């Protein structure tokens, strides 16, 4: 892995909200095709880090480069077009549109802007293929407002995939799902990873993180306290203390 160039490299990311330091000089690097788990207790800054990486909020300090480009000053839509795509903790479907309509937005506004875009199929055809992949093909022409929770999560992922990401940031895509539904989403994420998409999984469900991640990054109170291969991190005393107490 060290011989390859990193896909995303964020150095010394800092973010404060008033007097509260949400992120304190966090470094994170992601390599192409990697599966990384991002964990930490509530309020540790996971979502803030996602927001800073995806551009939903700007970071106060630090630099972020993606594919060799400095992106820390780019608005979110430009980052999406470059290939950093995120999903939301609470699904945010475009409720006035059908399921397939939801996917045509990133296909039109992000995927087509890729330098290597090769739109042999129409947006709708591509959208249907993606929906096939995530198992929402039979809901394609239904209103996205009427989906169940797990379907909404799948739509959220499908919409992210439609932006043709190189790095997918999945922000708690499994919170509140049943065990079998969690397994469904995990296998879906593996499938996407097989297609060459690097994935950052933010998750509270430890089983899911351990099953999925090659590497785990741990945030506590805005600082990165561990960043290593999954097994090593899980045996890290500081991590155990942060999660389980003394």
């Amino acid at each position: 892995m060290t011989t390859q160039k990193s896909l995303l490299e964020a150095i010394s990311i800092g973010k404060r909200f008033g007097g509260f330091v949400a992120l304190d000089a966090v470094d994170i690097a992601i390599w192409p095709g990697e599966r990384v788990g991002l964990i930490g207790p509530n309020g540790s800054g996971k979502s803030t880090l996602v927001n800073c990486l995806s551009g939903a909020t700007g970071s106060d300090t630090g630099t972020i480069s993606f594919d060799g480009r400095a992106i820390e000053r780019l608005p979110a839509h430009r980052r999406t077009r470059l290939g950093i795509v995120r999903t939301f903790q609470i699904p945010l479907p475009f409720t006035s549109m059908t399921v397939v309509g939801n996917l045509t937005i990133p296909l039109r506004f992000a995927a087509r802007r890729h330098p290597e875009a090769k739109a042999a199929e129409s947006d709708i055809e591509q959208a249907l293929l993606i929906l096939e992949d995530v198992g929402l093909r039979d809901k394609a022409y239904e209103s996205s407002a009427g989906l169940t929770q797990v379907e909404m999560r799948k739509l959220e992922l499908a919409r992210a995939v439609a932006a043709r990401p190189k790095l997918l940031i999945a922000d708690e895509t499994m919170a509140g799902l049943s065990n079998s539904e969690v397994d469904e989403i995990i296998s879906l994420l593996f499938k996407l990873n097989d297609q060459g998409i690097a994935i950052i999984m933010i998750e509270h469900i430890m089983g899911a993180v351990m099953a999925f991640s090659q590497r785990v990054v741990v945030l506590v109170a805005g600082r990165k306290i561990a960043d290593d291969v999954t097994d090593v991190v899980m045996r890290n005393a500081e991590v155990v203390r942060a999660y389980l107490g003394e």
Partner: protein
Amino acid sequence: MRRIPSWIWPVAVAVFILTLSRLVENEYYMFAGYVVLQYIVLASAWNILGGYAGYVNFGSAAFFAIGAYGTVVLDKLLEPPLVVAILFGGIVASLVGLVTAYLTLRLRGVFFAIATLALAIVLQTLVMNWEFVGGPLGFYTIRPDSIAGFPSYVNYLFVVMLVLALISVLVARAIERSFVGRGLAAIRDNELAAECCGVPTLRLKVFATMLSGGLMGMAGAPFPYYITYLDPNSAFSIAYSINSIAMPLIGGMTYWIGPVIGAVLLAVIQQVATVTISSELNLMIVGVLLISFITLAPNGIVGLFESYRQQRHRRPGT
């Protein structure tokens, strides 16, 4: 198999109205029709930002008045042909739209609405204190003699407004069906999600505000010639702001035809009420209709029609 392009219908209706305007002798119908057409422009323009993108503009009167006062300024300086005044009004209004957009589009929901309302008040105060255009006393425009090829100047104004209405409808329709319209709909549904799907939300909102404002300015440009006496209270009348919102709401905001239906319906009712009952009753009619539609049919007349059609489709199938 070639289908008839559907933009032909608005054009055909416009041509039909144009023909009618040649046959009708009574000039009053031109006067009343002008107002209806003017509202088609305002409602369609408002809907580009308010209906498609979900940003409620309470300051339509400001953009309309910019167009009207743009004409006054030009009229005092060099008396150009009306077409020039319309283009001028449209350009100035869309530039004001550009500035407004950058100042206010970071505001969401009700805050944006209040900011646009404030814009109208600020501009009205400025015009009130601007002696060159008459200040609070207003300004008399002298209508040019009748234009060659038209029975009267009022008829000419009517045809001009008919063309503007047709342009607005075609523009609104084109936006709705283009990727810009899709992007605006995504913004309306969820702006953050839209941005993260690659939609350049700020640029689209600025574009929509400029286009919407520009069309409203164009609608206002012929107004000084229409009423011949323009003062701040009539140019900045709250009726324009309210009607521009009420008409798309009543007609339906998702499709271009909604504002047209709403504008025709409401403006005709107002014109009839003005003649038969009293001109004071107008805004009350709007209010009553607005409240009934918001409570009973939030998606407007087009929405009612659509849900009726969906029900009929569903029944035989399942």
